[in-house]
């Protein structure tokens, strides 16, 4: 138990640090959205930047707040396999539907 007594302030410090990083990333995401350079002709860069920041935030919460980083490997497999499947499905659907051969107004 002594080791845990030492571990506790360390864990709390990590939680606070993760919250700070999450706050900064959210602020950066919103600022990126409001930069006109991205809005006008660099939407793909905006998409990439927001996707990367969102992914980091997602990973931080899962790893540190949900404790998946230190927990049993089996939990990781049970959660990450459907998650990857969901991401692949979303990507495929998004890519397929972003190529519009026939304008919707004419269907």
């Amino acid at each position: 138990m002594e080791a845990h007594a030492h571990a506790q302030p360390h864990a709390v410090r990590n939680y606070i640090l993760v919250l700070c990083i999450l706050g900064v990333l959210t602020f950066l995401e919103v600022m990126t959205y409001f930069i006109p350079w991205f809005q006008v002709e660099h939407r793909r860069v905006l998409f990439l930047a927001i996707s990367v920041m969102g992914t980091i935030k997602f990973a931080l919460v899962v790893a540190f707040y949900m404790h998946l980083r230190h927990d049993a490997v089996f939990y990781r497999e049970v959660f990450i396999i459907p998650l990857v499947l969901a991401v692949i499905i979303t990507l495929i659907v998004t890519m397929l539907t972003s190529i519009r051969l026939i304008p919707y107004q004419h269907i």
Partner: protein
Amino acid sequence: MAAHATTGPVTHEHEAAHPPTSMGLPHIKLGFWTFLGSDCLFFGSLIATYMAYRGHSLTGPFSHTSWTAPDGHVVPHILNVPVTSISAFVLLVSSFAMVMALNGFQTNNRGRARLWLFLTAIFGLTFLGFQSYEFTEFYLNGLSLQQNLFGSCFFVLTGFHGTHVAFGVLWLLTLFVADLRKPIPPSKAVNVETCGLYWHFVDIVWIVIFAFVYLIPVTEKGGF
């Protein structure tokens, strides 16, 4: 059982201290991770539907561009990013509060556990308040579930998320009252941990929705 009263992650040594199960892992936690995996697919399908139909609405109001109604009334872009940014941050803070509450339960620090658990529920209710305000504003600006493709996809996606948050708040308050009636010992902290997993999941779903629905603007052609 005392070895189970840990902070933060449950390590393999502590899994060994748990009552034996067929897999050596607490069934409640394993079952819940499986549920979260299935919920990933559920929200994945809703987000994929939103992405498939983004920018395909034939009539307004639109998410990121203004629209002139048939009566000549101009409706500005419907999404209010500054307000939603605050609600997104509130949900992130609630995740922090939840992990602090779990830490309190695991270390048998009752004051900390109860305070942070209650704060988590309050932050959750605050998020729901923001969402109610947002939905009301949208409705008053002419966006409803039946108005256009954007309205249908948006309300179904964010509505299901809001329902998850509401259920999470009920769960948190139930735990809070249960702890007031009979303190939850560190050996039963896995029950709080399960609620925490659910709450953090609700948070990560919002991280994705906030990024893809609110922050990535829709072009007139629907692409990126």
